[in-house]
């Protein structure tokens, strides 16, 4: 177990280094001079020069890179161009609500398990049809359709905006209902499909047959014997679900005007706020890598076969 964790940790460090290098290099892709792009059309030569000095763009690549790393080591990702404060602060203030995440897990898992238990019946077919439609719709378009139906036509839910949890928990939930659902539908579909196929596989195993043969009630077999194994599989794709959620929140938060990490990134990109883009890329990718590390270690702990491969 110890050796496995050490090996896994080493790989993680290599990947994190590459991730940070890619995040940093994004700015090198900008054709021409990033300082000119950042300064905008109306900038004078003087202003451009100031930006160049402020962000160290006049230094060679390796000096910029070392400076960036030195900053990260002490938790400083540089200054945001447009927000006038540090990138770390701007990102930390806006970690998005996790309502969509919970929705995905509960509904996606539930639907997948139900489909597997009622395999090849109309329930299964209905759920799987909805799941494939769910993964085929652009989430931001679905959000717009929800606004038309629930906010404009039925006048039931707000069309956008965000109420902080501390201010009013009920309004907070109401304001997040539509965005969370449009964001979660894609992941729900994916999760339901994967859960179903895993569950179908597990239900065919010998130990399930044994459990049934010794006369255990169906729900005990499903909930105790089968579900545990499904959960282990779900744990391995948590990282991917999380990553998809962040992707989707960029557009969804723009549609519903929610001040989250996604909208912050979207506006950073529109205003060419490169330090903020670099920081956001690094932060989200690092979260993904670390979640996967945690999942792998947990997985090895739960399933001894993994440790000795």
């Amino acid at each position, binding site marked *: 177990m110890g050796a496995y964790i050490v090996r896994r940790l080493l790989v993680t460090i290599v990947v994190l280094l590459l991730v940070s290098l890619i995040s940093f290099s994004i700015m090198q892709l900008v054709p021409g001079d990033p300082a000119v792009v950042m300064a905008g059309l109306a900038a004078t030569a003087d202003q451009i020069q100031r930006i160049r000095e402020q962000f160290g763009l006049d230094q060679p690549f390796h000096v910029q890179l070392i400076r960036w790393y030195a900053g990260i080591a002490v938790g400083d990702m540089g200054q945001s161009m447009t927000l006038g404060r540090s990138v770390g602060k701007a990102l930390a203030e806006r970690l998005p609500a996790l309502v969509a995440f919970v929705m995905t897990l509960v509904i996606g898992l539930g639907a997948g398990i139900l489909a597997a238990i009622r395999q090849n019946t109309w329930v299964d077919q209905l759920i799987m049809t909805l799941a494939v439609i769910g993964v085929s719709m652009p989430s931001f378009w679905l959000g717009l359709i929800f606004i038309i139906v629930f906010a404009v036509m039925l006048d039931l839910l707000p*069309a956008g905006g965000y109420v902080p949890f501390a201010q009013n928990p009920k309004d907070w939930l109401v304001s997040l209902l539509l965005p969370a659902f449009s964001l979660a539908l894609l992941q729900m579909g994916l999760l339901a499909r994967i859960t179903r196929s895993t569950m179908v596989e597990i239900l065919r195993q010998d130990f399930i047959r044994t459990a049934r043969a010794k006369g255990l009630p169906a729900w005990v077999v499903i909930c105790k014997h089968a579900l545990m194994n499904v959960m282990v599989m779900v744990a391995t794709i948590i990282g991917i679900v999380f990553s998809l959620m962040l992707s989707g929140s960029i557009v969804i938060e723009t549609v519903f005007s929610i001040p989250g990490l996604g909208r912050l990134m979207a506006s950073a990109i529109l205003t060419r706020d490169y330090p903020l883009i670099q920081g956001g890329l690094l932060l989200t990718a690092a979260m993904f890598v670390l979640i996967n590390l945690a999942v792998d270690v947990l997985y090895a702990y739960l399933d001894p076969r993994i440790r000795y491969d």
Partner: protein
Amino acid sequence: MTDAAVQAPALMRRRSAWRRYATHRLFAAGAILCSIAVLLAIFADVLAVRSPERTRISATFQPPSDTYLMGTDNLGRDVWSRVAHGSRVSILIGLATVMLAGIAGTLVGLFAGYYRRLDEPLMRLMDALMSFPALLLAVGITAALGPSATNVVIAIAVVYAPRTARIVRASTLVLREMDFVMGAKAAGATDLRILLRHLLPNCLGPLVVQLTFVFAYAVLAEAALSFLGMGPPPPAPSWGNVISDGRDYLREAPWICLFPGLAISITVLGLNLLGDGLRDLLDPRMKIQES
């Protein structure tokens, strides 16, 4: 034996393969939906005679009717024409992404799978690229390169090539150990020949399935990028552009957003069904398990 006698079983095999594909419900449904989108793109000029870019001040915000099948937008442009012509941009971007991500991913996957020494560095790099939230990386790349159709393709391909590489590598790792590869080596085949003539054809099944899904993701990603203002620049319509334009008029004219979104959903649904169908058909193991 005559030629005809030799050909007959082969012909029958081919015919039964056709039948297998045509009667597979997922595959058939997916193929039909995809053909609709492709035909729309090819015959956009014939099907939608009005120019997608011409504005008419006298006919703004017309609801769907006999004259304007899908209504008109805030500038009086015909939404049906914009959806029909937009299919060209969306589908061409999808195709170009599939080619670029397919070629890059296949090369990386083959090399990583075949040469043990390249495996670690190449795949760790792919892991790093896959660590970024897909859309965020695509948006970041287009933001740096500037919004244009070509840059959108490059950005989406960078995001999906690693996922393709991983699948090709997995197949290559298994194939590398097979006897026919050793046979080819013994017969004096060069590495390049082994890679391209012996390994690649055997990876094609999973690769084609993966590329079908890459196509679907590319159509969705193009729409999202356009929506964020990072897509191919106006006035040329793409599905994402049209939705983005209609966003400010949700109350007065919901049809502007509705129809291009439906077009995206139908196309992506078709591609997903096609991919699912192909996976069933190309992987006999799955078939046995299902029945």
